[in-house]
């Protein structure tokens, strides 16, 4: 069996007595797109926050590439190759799209204790950043202030930033949220194209996207994993249908 890229063991987190992550066990295999689905409040975003280091876990361990990162800080995890997007777009709104990606490139290029040379004219940052913008289809918007981009463009920009950090595993928190059908479809194609290079953990409400992209799916309800399997296995799983799709009567 393949060594998992990300191994989650007995991961727990609660807020004031309410378990948002309850003893989660999950393996993400190299090269797969693994979707996590579940109803609102199931703890999906909490899971990503725990994995990216934004929240400290109460218990359990996370191993990435064989290394225990349970106690690592968010920046340290990112530098190991664990990059994330946010459910609510998180970009630097006051500067241009290109500046955003250049900053992510800079972050990946080692320490930033360089206090003299102007960063905005540094080809070592600008060129790869521009290339990434081209890749996500924002090249013609490079010099627009990020806060002025359309919503969908901002989401694309965030993905460009995620890619700029040179990740091995992408943690994508509802990348299609708030997008129109056409935009979503383009993003699905784009993510599918990335599949060869990156492993992905995808949280998504858009079931079409999930079933189109995912190799495996995990279903989370009240912070607990109730099923993991291929899309067809999940589709057939009665627990899932009952707990998640709310089809108690229909199945019975």
């Amino acid at each position, binding site marked *: 069996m393949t060594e998992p890229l990300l191994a989650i063991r007995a991961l727990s987190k609660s807020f004031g007595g309410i378990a948002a992550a309850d003893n989660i066990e999950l393996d993400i295999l190299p090269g797969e797109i693994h979707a996590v689905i579940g109803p609102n409040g199931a703890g999906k975003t909490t899971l990503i926050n725990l994995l*990216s280091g934004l929240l400290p876990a109460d218990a359990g361990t996370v191993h990435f590439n064989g290394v225990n990162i349970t106690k690592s800080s*968010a*920046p340290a995890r990112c530098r190991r190759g664990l990059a*994330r997007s946010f459910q609510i777009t998180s970009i630097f709104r006051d500067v241009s799209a290109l500046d955003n990606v250049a900053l992510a490139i800079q972050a990946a290029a080692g320490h930033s204790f360089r206090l003299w040379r102007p960063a905005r004219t540094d080809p070592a*940052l600008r060129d790869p950043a521009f290339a990434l913008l081209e890749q996500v289809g924002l090249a013609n918007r490079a010099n627009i202030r990020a806060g002025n981009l359309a919503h969908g463009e901002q989401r694309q920009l965030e993905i460009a930033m995620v890619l700029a950090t040179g990740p091995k595993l992408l943690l994508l928190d509802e990348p299609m949220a708030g997008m129109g059908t056409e935009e979503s479809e383009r993003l699905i194609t784009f993510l599918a194209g990335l599949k060869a290079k990156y492993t992905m953990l995808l949280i998504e409400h858009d079931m079409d996207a999930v079933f189109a992209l995912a190799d495996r799916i995990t279903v989370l309800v009240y912070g607990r994993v109730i099923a993991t399997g291929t899309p067809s296995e999940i589709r057939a799983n009665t627990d899932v249908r009952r707990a998640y799709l709310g089809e108690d009567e229909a199945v019975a």
Partner: protein
Amino acid sequence: MTQTSKSQRPQNLWARLRDSRTSVSLLLLAIAAATPLAAPALGQSFYVDVIARIMIWAIAATSLNLILGYGGMVSFGHAVYLGIGAYAMGIMATEGITNGFIQWPLALLLCGFFALIFGAISLRTKGVYFIMITLAFGQMLFFLGISVERYGSDDGLLIFTRSEFDLGFAELDLSNGTTLYYVIWASLIGCIYLSHRIVNSRFGMVLRGAMSNETRMQAIGVPTYRYRLAAFVIAGMMAGLAGLLSANFERFISPDMMNWPRSGELIVMIVLGGMGTLFGPVLGSVAFLMLSELLSTWTEKWHLIFGPFLILVVLFARGGLAGMLERLNPRSDP
């Protein structure tokens, strides 16, 4: 798409001068450069001192702007580094060390050291807690200054000998008012240029990024704390330079330099001038000090006018003077 869109176009001089913020600021600096020559001829030598004092405050404000305007760190105890720089000089002068080559580096190192300690603790907190803990550190040193009798305690300390810079072949004589004036002027230019380099460097990008969206910054792998701390130390040392200059210029230092209203005034200058802009602190310190000078000669009750003026600035002049000047610019490409 051409190469130029990837890197910001290097602006030519003319393009920069069209920016009214820059041109007004450069004009002010040029006036400052000409003052020691022109003022005595006009019988206004007093204004040489006024402008020197404004420039010293402008250096301090520039240093605070580095962390506040570009890093979002609202330090309410920044005047303390002014005090440390000044007291380091004053204490050494009292103890007979007048060699500037010893005084200045030691004073700056001391400022850096204190900024490192205070910053390391303060930067663990956020928001209002940060404002308050920096205030606390400022007050600690303020009370320390009050209590050390040997160095004047509450009454302050007179400095009888200015720093001596003997280069062997020549001497930089700070007891010559004009020399000191131009040292202050050059220091201000130097500090503005240094902050210009810093805020546009990779380091500056991290600082600004962490101000605008810290979570994102962490998520792209940047441990923001250490960059903030480094900026805090740089700003502390720059303020220390202002303190050194002030001690040489006024030849009198008192703990009051470190008291919290002084830190408040520094913040006022920055916001008044336009925070997060290169020349904002200069514009702000000119406006603040000139206005208080003018109003206080006009009426003793000047606070009655100045207080509401500050409130109006906050309410209506967003972006401060720099912002107002920017609005004067001819509309250029978006």
